[in-house]
C-alpha cells in the first residue's frame, strides 16, 4: 500500500510539474502591459541604399492600397522619412477605430483618413488632411523637402494636403525612407490589422525621382503580420498564420 501511495504521490508531483512547465513554456503575449490603444506595432521596410539619406519619397502608379475594416484601435499605412528616433516626417492613411488613442486626428470612425505627421526632438504632431479615401483603391502619397532646406510638404496624389506654402520646417533636411504597416492595441494574432501594400515606391534626390533600388526589412514587431518584398519598388505587409517571434535587429527604440 505504501508503495502504491508513493507512486500516486510521485505521479501527482510529476503531473503538477508538467502542468506548470507547459504553462510557462506557452508562447507569452509580447506585451506584458495590459493592451491599450496607445500600444503600437510596426512592420517597417526601408530602402537601405548604403544608409544614405534622401530628400523625400513617394508611392505612385498605382500607389498605396487603402484597406477597410473596423478596427478596435487604429490601423495605419504610411510613408516615413526617418532621420533618427527623434526627428521624422510621415504621410499616409489611418482608420482610427472606435477606441482610438490618437487625439490629434480626432476621427474615431471606420473611415480611412489621410493624415500628415512629424516629430521634432521627440515631440510629435499629427494632423488630419483634406481629401477622402475609399477602401479598395490605390492612391499616390508623397512627402519631400524639395528645396533641401528642412521644410517638408505632404501630398495625396497631386494635391498638397499639409505644410502650406513654406512647409513644416524641422532640423531634418533628409532621411532614410521607409514604408510602415502599423496597428495599435492588442498584438496577438487576430487583433487589428497591420496590412499594407506599397506599389510604385520612389525616392527623391537632387537628380529627381527614381525607383527604390533596394528594399529590406528594418523592423517587424507585429505578431501575425510579416513583410513580403514583391519587387524593388513593391512591398506588402500581409497576414500570416504563425506567431512571429519579432525581428527588430536594427530599428531604434
Amino acid at each position: 500500500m505504501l508503495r502504491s501511495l508513493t507512486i500516486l504521490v510521485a505521479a501527482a508531483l510529476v503531473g503538477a510539474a508538467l502542468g506548470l512547465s507547459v504553462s510557462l513554456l506557452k508562447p507569452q503575449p509580447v506585451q506584458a502591459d495590459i493592451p491599450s490603444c496607445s500600444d503600437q506595432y510596426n512592420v517597417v521596410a526601408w530602402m537601405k541604399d548604403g544608409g544614405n539619406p534622401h530628400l523625400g519619397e513617394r508611392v505612385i502608379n498605382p500607389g498605396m492600397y487603402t484597406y477597410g475594416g473596423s478596427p478596435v484601435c487604429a490601423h495605419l499605412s504610411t510613408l516615413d522619412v526617418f532621420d533618427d528616433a527623434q526627428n521624422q516626417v510621415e504621410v499616409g492613411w489611418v482608420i482610427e477605430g472606435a477606441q482610438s488613442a490618437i487625439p490629434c486626428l480626432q476621427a474615431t470612425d471606420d473611415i480611412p483618413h489621410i493624415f500628415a505627421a512629424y516629430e521634432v526632438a521627440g515631440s510629435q504632431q499629427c494632423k488630419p488632411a483634406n481629401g477622402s479615401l475609399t477602401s479598395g483603391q490605390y492612391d499616390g502619397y508623397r512627402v519631400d523637402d524639395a528645396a533641401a532646406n528642412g521644410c517638408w510638404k505632404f501630398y495625396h496624389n497631386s494635391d498638397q494636403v499639409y505644410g502650406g506654402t513654406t512647409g513644416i520646417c524641422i532640423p531634418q533636411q533628409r532621411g532614410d525612407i521607409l514604408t510602415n504597416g502599423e496597428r495599435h492595441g492588442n498584438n496577438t494574432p487576430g487583433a487589428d490589422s497591420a496590412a499594407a501594400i506599397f506599389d510604385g515606391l520612389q525616392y527623391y534626390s537632387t537628380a529627381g525621382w527614381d525607383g527604390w533600388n533596394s528594399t529590406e526589412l528594418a523592423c517587424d514587431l507585429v505578431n501575425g503580420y510579416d513583410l513580403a518584398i514583391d519587387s524593388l519598388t513593391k512591398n506588402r505587409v500581409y497576414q500570416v498564420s504563425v506567431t512571429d517571434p519579432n525581428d527588430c535587429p536594427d530599428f531604434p527604440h
Partner: protein
Amino acid sequence: MVSRLWSRTALVRASVVMLVAALAAAGSYHARLASSKRPPAVKPPNLFVGQGGVSAPGSDPFLDGQKVSLDVAAKAAPYHIYTLPSTSSASGGVPTVWLQEAKLDDGQAYVAVQLQYPSGFILDERSAVPGASAATTASNLASTNLGQQIKLSDGTPAYFIEQASDWTKANPASITTTLGGVTVEVIAHSTQSDLAAAADSLA
C-alpha cells in the same frame, strides 16, 4: 520593459529545468523547447503615432548607426561636436556616442551624431541647413506649432518645446538652436530651466 522580459526569461529557464527533469523518460522535451518562443528584446519603435519620447539609453537612434568614441565621432564630423561639461548635473558622466555616416546625393558627407548622457540628457547634432543661423532655425521651427521661440542667456535664439506637451503627453522637453553651422537639439525629460542651463553650457 527589458528587465521585466529578462525576468520572464529566467522563469522560462527555470521551467525548462523542471520540464527536463519531469520529461526525461518521455524524451519529448527537445520538441517542446524548439517550439517555445523567445520574448523580444526590444521595445516597440518610436515610429510616429506611438509612445513619444527619446531613444532608450544605449540604443542606436539611427537605422544604421555605430556606437563610437567621442574622438572617432569628432574625426568623422565635418563640424564641431558640442558636449556638456562633465561636471554639470545634466551630464552625469561619459556619454554614449552614436554616429551615422552617409553620403548625400551630391556626394557630400552626411554625418549625424547623438550623445546619450547617463543623466538622461541627449544632444542630437547634425549639419545645419547651409547658411542657416540660430534665428532662422528658431523661426523655421515655429512652423511646427510644437513650442515657442526663446533666447539663451547670451541672446542666442532657440526653440523650446515643453515636456508632456504634445498629443502623446509623453514627449521630452527640448531646446534646438544652431551654433556655428551645427544644429543641436538638447533633449531631456526635464524643465525649461534645466534645459536652458544645459544649452548655455554647451562647449
